[in-house]
């Protein structure tokens, strides 16, 4: 199953990257969302899947899943959320200010 989840995460990364390479801002931002989902799945997989109970200690259970990746993912999710919200507002402002949501039209020119 780890292999399958790894491949799934790879697919998320690939679709994320593909969206990132598009022109339209919305697609690009969607791409970043997919990328972070992929990353989180990778972290989860690294802790071995389904090896025991959720890491909430109870008596007479000795086998728990790896809690550290979960903690890391939690931190990462929150940070991604922060960045995603910022980028959303930024994208909105940029598109409004520059009157386009096409990144190819947001190249700018030399010597400004």
């Amino acid at each position, binding site marked *: 199953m780890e292999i399958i989840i790894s491949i799934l995460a790879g697919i998320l990364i690939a679709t994320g990257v593909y969206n*990132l390479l598009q022109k339209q*801002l919305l697609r*690009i931002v969607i791409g*970043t969302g997919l*990328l*972070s989902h*992929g*990353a989180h799945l*990778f*972290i989860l*997989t*690294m*802790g071995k899947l389904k090896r025991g109970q959720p890491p909430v200690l109870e008596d007479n259970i000795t086998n728990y899943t790896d809690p*550290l*990746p979960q903690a*890391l993912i939690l*931190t*990462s999710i929150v*940070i*991604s959320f*922060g*960045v995603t919200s*910022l*980028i959303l507002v*930024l*994208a909105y*402002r*940029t598109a409004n*200010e*520059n009157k386009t949501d096409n*990144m190819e039209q*947001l190249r*700018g020119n*030399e*010597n*400004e």
Partner: protein
Amino acid sequence: MSNLVILPIIIPLIAGIIAVFLNKKVVITRGLTKIFIIANLAIVSYMTWIVFNSGSIILETGSWVAPYGIILVADPLSIVLVLTTNIVAAACAFYAPYSLSLKKEQHYFYAFYFFLISGVSGAFLTGDLFNLFVFFEVLLMASYALIVLGGDKVQLRESIKYVLINLFSSILFVTVVAFLYGVVGTVNMAQIAERVQEVEQKGVLTAIGILLFFVFGTKAALFPLYYWMPKSYIVPNPVISALFGALLTKVGIYSILRVFTLIFIHEINLTHEMFIWIAGLSMVFGIIGALSTNNIKLIVAYNVIPAIGFIIMGIGIFNQDAISGSVYYLIHDMIIKSALFLIVGVIAYVAGTSDLRKMSGLMHHYPLLGWLLFVSAFVLAGIPPFSGFIGKLLLLKGALTDEKIAIVIIALLTSLLILYSIMKIFIRGFWGEKNTTMELGKRSMKGFIGPIVFLLTFSVVLGIGAEYIYPSIDTISAYLLDPEQYIDSVLKE
């Protein structure tokens, strides 16, 4: 005693939070900013003294012993860089009120400024790879906020590219940390180093290392990953450019220096050999960029890239002299790069344009500014007796000892062209007839010069007073080349 380590991270954090609440009372914020940054500088200086006299200071946060909790390590390398960070930051704090509009100051400039410093210091001090990611995010988030501060069209346009590329590299970063955790089962850098050494960096480890290199390389603006950098560095206010130029890319290169002297050092023939190639290409393409434009801010921004090239060259060569050279160059470049960004900021301000083709004869009105630029051109190019010279001498010596002739020739030609690129500003902008179309002499440079002189003093001292600095740098280099020292001091074995 060991609690000292947290102070360079916490003091700016607290100062930043205070600045958030005092945002409307600009005068008080300015005063407090200066007080806080100077206090921080004093504490860091004291810490530096301790580190060099009685060894690294290590803090196990929350008393969770290494390698389980997050470890903060003030070792010679990190503390020197934190010190330099605070020097640059102090100069910027005094420059900012003159350069920024009231609106920008009120819109939390000082808060973001402190958060940035907090993140940078944290990144230098942490001994935990995941925690490094978190501090990266702190400093990046602060930089996102700073780069859009003001929010005009061009700024927004370049910021979004900046944010996107950094966001991508952050995601990659966290993934790679996970991969590494999957193999070695830990995120503590000392323990990672120990375990990687145990299996002699076999299997997938080298590939993971290279991915990590690309993550940091993107932040450090190495060839061919620097595309996001030049234009996004010039859109915000000069004081912000100075902070970026001095701190952001340097955190990236610091991470490479750390990781590739501590952890991934068992396939040097492959990995470090590639660094030399990348160093050469960074120099060449960086300087070509700097020569390609007439925008004075852009010239300086492009010059960030060859400097990074010099530093990575030392890491690639990987001997005592070369690593000393890299560290020396790193410190030198943090200072001179921020000074240069501040200088071109003033030039653009007094000339009313950053287009070199529209300037001439500034010398008649601003001789002092001209001479500051003149000196910094030589500092930057590594012409003696300034700071760049010592770094370059060590790097080239290291390279020639290891028979790396080609990179030496590239480095020397690059130095020449770096000089040319900055001298262009001096010759075309400052020399020549008075330009009647510019409204010259009206804008005062009051307040701008002090911080620049402050920074350049350090450049001169780093060069002429090398006798007082170099032994410490040599200590750092010897320390980096002997990773056991780091591992032992963290894991207490």
